[in-house]
């Protein structure tokens, strides 16, 4: 009895010490979060609800509260914003599943052993470097090569392979609408492969945590590779899939060459319309949050955690 009395406060003390140490370790983040995230977030919310005027010299800026006027402008007056937003959301609906499936597939292949695997991994990961930041924006603007292509086409009567295939297939009378979606997928394959570098790595690390003994046991019991994939691999990486989907969604919305992002930045930097730009940014943010929340709510039920 006496012994526990002595031991208890000591234990508590250690716990408190640990808690203080923990807070010291994360204190840079807390300062940063409060000063550079929470405060601006509140301020930008206030800005989105008001008319922002920059007062020159010493003062700073002045907010005149005017309710939902900025949001009304975004949705009802501005010609571009709603169009950009809906295009963005519909593109996401096809882009995210395609990225996940392709990167998972590639991770499965790159996880097998074959000659030159290291090189293949290195090349598949290259887009993370080559298509980041300013480079990806310039890539899309680079009309030189497409211009050259057209010039060549005019002069030599040659045509693209895809276009030729397209014309052959559509004359055979197959369902043209389905073919149309297939063409779109093939055409956007580049974008998808370029965007899936990090996802492949995350999937690879997930695949490598599956114990080999599981597959051995299953093979001895007469399990084929196909069954093994559905019954072992997929459940074991389901948590990784969830993380990857969320990462892909965030990455898709955050890439700086998206039309909505460009519009928000331009409104702020060029036109100095801080209120309107804040309102658009908030609409965008809420849309992203809504999609991520809905998705994780629906899928978290199927995620299997192996301990």
């Amino acid at each position, binding site marked *: 009895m006496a012994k526990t009395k002595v031991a208890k406060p000591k234990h508590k003390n250690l716990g408190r010490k*640990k*808690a203080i140490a*923990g*807070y010291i*370790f*994360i204190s*840079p*983040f807390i300062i*940063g*979060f409060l000063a*550079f*995230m929470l*405060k*601006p*977030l509140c301020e*930008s919310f206030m*800005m989105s609800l008001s008319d922002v005027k920059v007062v020159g010299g010493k003062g700073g*800026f002045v907010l005149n509260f005017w309710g939902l006027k900025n949001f009304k402008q975004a949705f009802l007056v501005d010609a571009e914003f709603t169009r950009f937003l809906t295009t963005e959301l519909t593109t996401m609906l096809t882009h995210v599943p395609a990225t996940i499936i392709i990167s998972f597939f590639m991770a499965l*292949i790159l996880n*097998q052993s074959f000659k030159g695997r*290291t090189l293949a*991994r*290195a*090349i598949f990961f*290259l887009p*993370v*470097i*080559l298509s*980041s*930041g*300013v*480079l990806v*924006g310039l890539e899309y*603007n*680079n009309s*030189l090569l497409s*211009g050259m292509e057209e*010039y*060549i086409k005019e002069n030599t009567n040659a045509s693209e392979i895809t276009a030729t295939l397209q014309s052959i297939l559509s004359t055979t009378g197959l369902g043209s609408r389905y073919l149309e979606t297939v063409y779109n997928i093939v055409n956007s394959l580049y974008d998808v*492969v370029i965007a899936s570098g990090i996802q492949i790595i*995350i999937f*690879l*690390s*997930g695949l*490598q*945590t599956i114990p080999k003994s599981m597959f051995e046991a299953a093979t001895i019991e007469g399990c084929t590779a196909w069954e093994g994939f559905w019954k072992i691999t997929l459940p074991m990486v389901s*948590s*990784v899939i969830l993380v990857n989907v969320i990462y892909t969604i965030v990455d898709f*919305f*955050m890439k*700086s060459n998206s039309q909505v*992002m460009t519009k928000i*930045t331009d409104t*702020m930097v060029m036109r100095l319309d*801080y209120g309107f*730009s*804040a309102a658009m*940014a908030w609409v*965008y943010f809420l849309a992203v949050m809504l999609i*991520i929340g809905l998705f994780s709510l629906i899928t978290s039920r199927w995620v299997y955690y192996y301990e």
Partner: protein
Amino acid sequence: MSKKLSQRWSHFLERNKKSGGYLLKKIIMRRLYSIARAILILGLCFLILQPLFNKLSASFMAEKDLYDPTIIVVPRNPTLDNYKIAAYLLDYWRILRNTLGLSLLASFAQVACCTLVGYGFARFKFPLKRLWFACVILVIVVPPQTIMSSLYLNFRFFDIFGIIKAITGSTINLQNSIIPYIMLCMTGMGLKSGLYIFLIRQYFRGVPKELEEAAYVDGCGNFQTFVRIMLPDATPIITSCFLFAFVWQWTDNFYARIFLKGTSLLATELPALPTRLTDYIISLTGSGKASTAYGMAMISTGMVMTIIPLLIIYVIAQKGFVESLSQTGLKM
């Protein structure tokens, strides 16, 4: 030799007969599969590398090669003039130094902060831990545009609780210095910092607790344990995060456009190349305009010049990027 081969062949046929044709079928299937896999991988690798090759070939072309329809990849009049002009227009060596310095400084600050925070989240129990971790997730998810306008104005009229204004009578304009950006990096709010915190935390969670406990028993304090025991152990993930931070910083033009207006960097100068080319041509000949194709070839050249330092780093540290991250066995 041939005798040996025929012996092996007959041996194989015998084995195949015994298995009822299964062996041959299996081998053929395996070969077919690896051929299909090789084709797929080669195709996708080509898809990824092709834009890079295009840029490289365009950057070596003389201007007349660009309009010649019979020239597709290999330039007929290979020249280094594009590089010379681009280097002159960009003031390449100066902004390369700027970019290198900033990227090193920023990514170092970022990784130092994220390692501390990630370790704190992985190894200590403290009240409100879940709330703070939710804040990390929030940092990952909030588009920088949402807070940017407010941050921008905050740094334009910088003040700490009104103290500076009380002393000097006016706020400080930090817009054209790199101080605000380094401040953001040091407090875990830089470019993709949330992601690094998350990755490092996942890594530290996988390190066995016994290591630390042994250190505590031997009389190490919290901070000493971290520096002496945990940091050396976490080298792979820290290296990966540092490389990511460096590369993404190198190509970032979003934060740079807002916070680093006074500093000329590769990422912010690159898009202006065609305009500069036109100005340059006008200044030489007094009139005329650079054609779009030539401007685009110039951009390709500039992009190659931006990418090459990154490629060199990538080739050297390829293991740090790919293998270490996939072999750390991050548990999500």
